[in-house]
């Protein structure tokens, strides 16, 4: 049953005309509102497919947006707000996963690959160089002979 509800919610999240943030949600203080938007873009709408709560029109996303604004108005810092949401909804809610043992490979991958690629380049260059030294005296004389023939 729960799976069915989730499936229906996903469909609704996908097809609702997406008008995420509604006028009555917007905070009076533009600075706080800007922070709320930044945080919202990092939080996943839990019933949608790969949508942030900032983009989603689903009710659950609206609830989360209101929670974020509530916490900001109460004076929380951005990290404190994220902590608050993660404590209730788990890591899954973060679109940018936190660095931990489990996500180390994810975050490290770009640099690791770039570094490994660079190493391969350096080494392959060394080997090609080692494999093709200057022409030996014999090769040089053969080359000269060929060039003379032309």
């Amino acid at each position: 049953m729960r799976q069915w509800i989730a499936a229906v919610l996903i469909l609704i999240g996908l097809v609702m005309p997406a008008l995420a943030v509604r006028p009555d949600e917007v905070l009076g203080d533009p600075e706080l509102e800007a922070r709320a938007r930044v945080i919202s873009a990092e939080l996943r709408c839990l019933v949608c497919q790969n949508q942030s709560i900032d983009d989603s029109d689903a009710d659950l996303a609206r609830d989360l947006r209101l929670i974020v604004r509530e916490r900001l108005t109460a004076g929380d810092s951005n990290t404190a707000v994220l902590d608050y949401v993660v404590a209730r909804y788990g890591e899954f809610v973060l679109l940018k996963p936190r660095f931990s043992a489990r996500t180390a490979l994810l975050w490290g991958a770009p640099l690791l690959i770039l570094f490994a690629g660079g190493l391969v380049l350096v080494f392959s260059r060394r080997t090609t160089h080692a494999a093709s030294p200057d022409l030996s005296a014999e090769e040089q004389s053969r080359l000269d002979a060929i060039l003379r023939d032309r």
Partner: protein
Amino acid sequence: MVEIGHFALVLALALSLVQSIVPIVGSRANDPRLMAVARPVALATFAFISIAFLVLTWAYVVSDFSVRNVWENSHSLKPMLFKVTGTWGNHEGSMLLWVLILSLFSALVAVFSRNLPDALRANALAVQGWIASAFLAFILATSNPFTRLVPAPFEGQDLNPILQDIGLAVHPPMLYLGYVGFSVSFSFAIAALIDGRIDAAWARWVRPWTLVAWIFLTGGIAMGSYWAYYELGWGGFWFWDPVENASFMPWLAGTALLHSALVMEKRSALKIWTVLLSILTFSLSLLGTFLVRSGVLTSVHAFATDPTRGVFILAILTLFVGGSLALFAFRAPSLTAGGIFQPISREGALVLNNLFLTTAAATVLIGTLYPLLVEALSADKISVGAPFFNLTFGPLMIPLLALVPFGPLLAWKRGDLYAAAQRLAWALGGAILATMIVMIFVDRTMLFAALGIGLAVWLVLGAITDIALRSGIGKVSFAAMGRRFIGLPRSAHGTAIAHLGLGVALLGIVATTAFQSEHITTMKPGDTAEIAGRSLRFDRLTPFKGPNYTEDQAFFTWIADGRELATLTSAKRLYPSRGMPTTEAGILTRGFSQAYVALGDPTDDGGIVVRIWWKPFVTMIWLGPVLMMIGGTLSISDRRFRIGAPARRRPSAMPQPAE
């Protein structure tokens, strides 16, 4: 009638099996008669798959609801255009389109490969046959579009409304032409590995095919992005959605392949890497097909509930990726390395390009698959979304983009970085000037946005510098420069225009992301909203009835400098047969910028929620890819591809001199 299509599809599978086996046996046995089988069979397979596809299209056109696929995805009242495009707006139909395009490419290879060595052609067509056989078997076994329904229902269930759009009509075929187009370079790579021989001529044969695929993939991605922009109604143009990533990864690898094939063609270097990249690019295309078609993206568990299709494609994927990589590992050591070059050279720049592009592709790959990996290995779920990709992909692109203008200015083999930098001085000056203008006149707080604009200007001016230098600026008279400009090889124009397009796209992305303004408000008829120094007046709301939908249309007037400049219409649409509402955003283009208006819910006091954006230079995001496509097309039309590849050099017993 429908059974003809079904029968044609089965025949196509039989023919593909012939195409898979006979030519390769011929090439092993060195029997020209067996090898000659490949071409007619490839053409016949294409003909039969075309028949199957036309039959399915016909079933959609006449709304034959006795076919399950038509019943599930069509409706008698649907406009004719969407009846036709609905053929590929569903799983079964889109897989049929996939193999149709695959067989089209095989047929094209068969027709345009007269000057290829017999064995290479026979092997390449056989590999195309393997892919076609696998996917035809997949369609017939798990996704048959010709299944009948008894008794036939009177009315269909209609196509998902957000897919009833002209963007969808063109987007999947273009994307598939790109995805599947890379099968040609894959097949040639496998053929070369089977043959155990590979040289610069190979790269010259493969490059036009890679370019064709790349052009279509570029177009397909750009079109998908524009479709999401105007149809989904929240004004974004790229969401790092796994489905988008699935098409973006082959694009990144394919772009790398284009550049490495260039090195191989001109300098006979990077052979092994180019072959590997051909394999990887098509593997990523296959992976994309698997990700999108298996349902694995929603959740590993959703995949496990109906595994037949997913497991079948996974088997195809494993077979082709694993098999080709194994063959590569087995054969690669026997391939000889090619020309030698200094790190500072055109080759060096292209190697760097490849390093960054493949790292970027790998980053997107890992980011897309990591949540699945975590979910499979532990009970937990994590999300990897847009903020992650922006943070990792962005920094990888910055050095790559900054180096682009240097590449074409460096000489092959041994380049002079200092001289290239000197020639680019005015481009750098322009970029710094642009950065300063943005900082001083637009927004002092946005240093990174200003630098982004500067980088875009650097790319644009760098491309112009390249073409101006080739035309002999400063060396010859203006008239002579014009003649030189026209006389340049088309591929030189192609390179410059494609790189220019990259700059244009970056300009659009940075300007839109950093400087767009947004206004969310409730409006009643007669109200005016202010946005980015202009205003928008809400005139009236009227109901409207389309062929298979009803909608509330809101009419707005766009006012700038006190003058009424244009009107725009935004709508909320409802498709009754599926009970689904969609947003039809109102978009007004002024110059390169756009105003974007989306409607929300009505409020109790007779107003309606309206979300308005002003998106500066947003059209450049898609204009850039159009320029890249033009550049690619110019490159294909280059003389060296038209006159055909030269005869293959005899393998010499002596080590190749470095020229």
